[in-house]
């Protein structure tokens, strides 16, 4: 697949782009993980990042969230350059990443986990309201609010991780492989939830290996290969793209 030109990517939805990655680069101890990452997240959309393992998806979203400092390129949020902001300040602006592997605080209770999620000033005033909303979304968490997070099952931990992300009052929620290691029933619930959150006005950037389901709910999608964005389009269009099918959908 040939690389897509950067300008081309931005053009079609630059009008309402909430988050823009512009030619991001990153290398781990000299090994390049991202060489040219450019894409946009449209306001109010679900946008998927897909690609093989090692294509640079997680690296890209970590850069967006401020957890990695790019070696080059820019990140724009609402048109402002936020490239060099550290993670806790990015959260303050309304961009929250729910990391791959959940990373809940195992020896904190569910409630404490959620309280940590509301550390940002933008969220601290709404702590109680957001806590209620999270418990509404995940009744399972409400039942277990005083239990240590480490004792919960993988599905429950994923819900807690998303709930924790929501506690920060995000405008943009980045989900890195939310379906990883979960049973089909839970995966379905997670995807339903993603749609619901999007319906509430949160822009969602979704990194998924579960490409079928991701493309099914995404308005836009970007395909990463070897550290660069090589293809973009609507979810439905990419689903039909033979090259994409060959590479990511098992050729079916």
């Amino acid at each position: 697949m040939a690389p897509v030109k950067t300008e081309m990517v931005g053009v079609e939805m630059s009008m309402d782009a909430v988050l823009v990655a512009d030619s991001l680069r990153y290398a781990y101890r000299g090994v390049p993980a991202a060489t040219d990452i450019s894409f946009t997240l449209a306001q109010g959309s679900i946008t998927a990042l897909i690609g093989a393992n090692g294509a640079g998806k997680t690296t890209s979203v970590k850069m967006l969230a401020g957890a990695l400092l790019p070696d080059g390129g820019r990140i724009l949020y609402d048109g402002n350059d936020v490239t060099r902001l550290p993670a806790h300040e990015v959260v303050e602006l309304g961009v929250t990443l729910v990391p791959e592997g959940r990373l809940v605080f195992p020896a904190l209770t569910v409630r404490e986990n959620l309280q940590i999620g509301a550390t940002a000033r933008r969220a601290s005033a709404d702590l109680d309201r957001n806590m209620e909303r999270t418990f509404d979304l995940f009744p399972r968490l409400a039942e277990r609010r005083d239990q240590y997070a480490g004792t919960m099952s993988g599905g429950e931990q994923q819900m807690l991780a998303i709930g924790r992300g929501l506690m920060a009052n995000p405008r943009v929620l980045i989900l890195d492989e939310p379906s990883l290691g979960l049973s089909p029933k839970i995966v379905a619930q997670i995807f339903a939830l993603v749609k619901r959150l999007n319906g509430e006005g949160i822009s969602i950037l979704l990194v998924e290996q579960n490409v079928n389901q991701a493309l099914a709910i995404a308005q836009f999608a970007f395909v990463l290969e070897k550290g660069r964005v090589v293809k973009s389009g609507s979810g439905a269009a990419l689903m039909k793209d033979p090259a994409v099918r060959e590479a990511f959908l098992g050729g079916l």
Partner: protein
Amino acid sequence: MTMRIFLLLGTLIVIVLLPQFLAPFHIRVVQLFFFTAALALAWNVMGGLAGYWSFGHTVFIGMGAFAAAHFVAKLGLPAGPLQMIAGIVFGALFCGIVAAIIAYPILRLRGIYFAIAMLGIGQVAAELANNVGWFQGDVGLFLETALPDGVEPERFFYYVFAGLFLFTWMVSLVVMRSRFGYGLLAIREDEDTAKMLGVPTEQIKAFGFTISAVLVGMLGATYAYSLGYFTASSVFRIDFSLNMIIYCLIGGIGTLAGPVVGAALMLLLTQIILGQLLELHLLATGLVVILIVLTLPNGVMGLVGGEAFRRRFSMRAGGKAR
């Protein structure tokens, strides 16, 4: 291959001929280098290869010394090379036996807990040696060698320590190339996974620990001979334990050359510092350690194993600090 043989031969020739060109004190410094480098190599078998950091390896220096002294006293052999060999062999064997006995319980501990347990064992042994009258650790023990006429002690011990160093080095080399060495490596990297791959982790750890103890015990007994007179406080020394670790870290832990390079480097530095900066030598040594950590992170970073020592809080996974 021939290149390697030449190098080995060259090294041997240099070691054999070196004393001819050196003043007595320099011989003594090189001797000290052989001693500390061999200690670091011996520590490295468990600390570097298996990731089991002992903070109390000096216990085997002390045990080796005490075992040798009491053994030769019992044996009643006249002072001389034969008696010395008997003492060293017994010191080494004794440490090996003790290590084999404590290996199973103590090696169930991992990371920092193993390190502390070894520190504790070292302290218990030191305290007992110092306070139980029979050991004579408080008043001291004599362990003398009667040397043939015309042999100076520093030269004699130079060759003895050179030999022990080469021996330790060969043992390390053989261990690292062997199936057993790969087993140690697997344990360092992930002990549970190693078990799943059929590595008999318990036995391998115990064996590695015993080898390490035998080597250190041998060196400890020899060290006692080179001192001639020692008390518990001369052989049970926490700084011995610390130095073994620091030499390995600075040179590169888990490698064959690392401990040797580290020992050479630090020995040179501290000798200079001790000689030149009387009232400030602690300060200078501290600065050197910090500078090495900050400027040579790769030497220090090494191939560190053991959960407790794993990288934490460097969230950027090797990325740039912000």
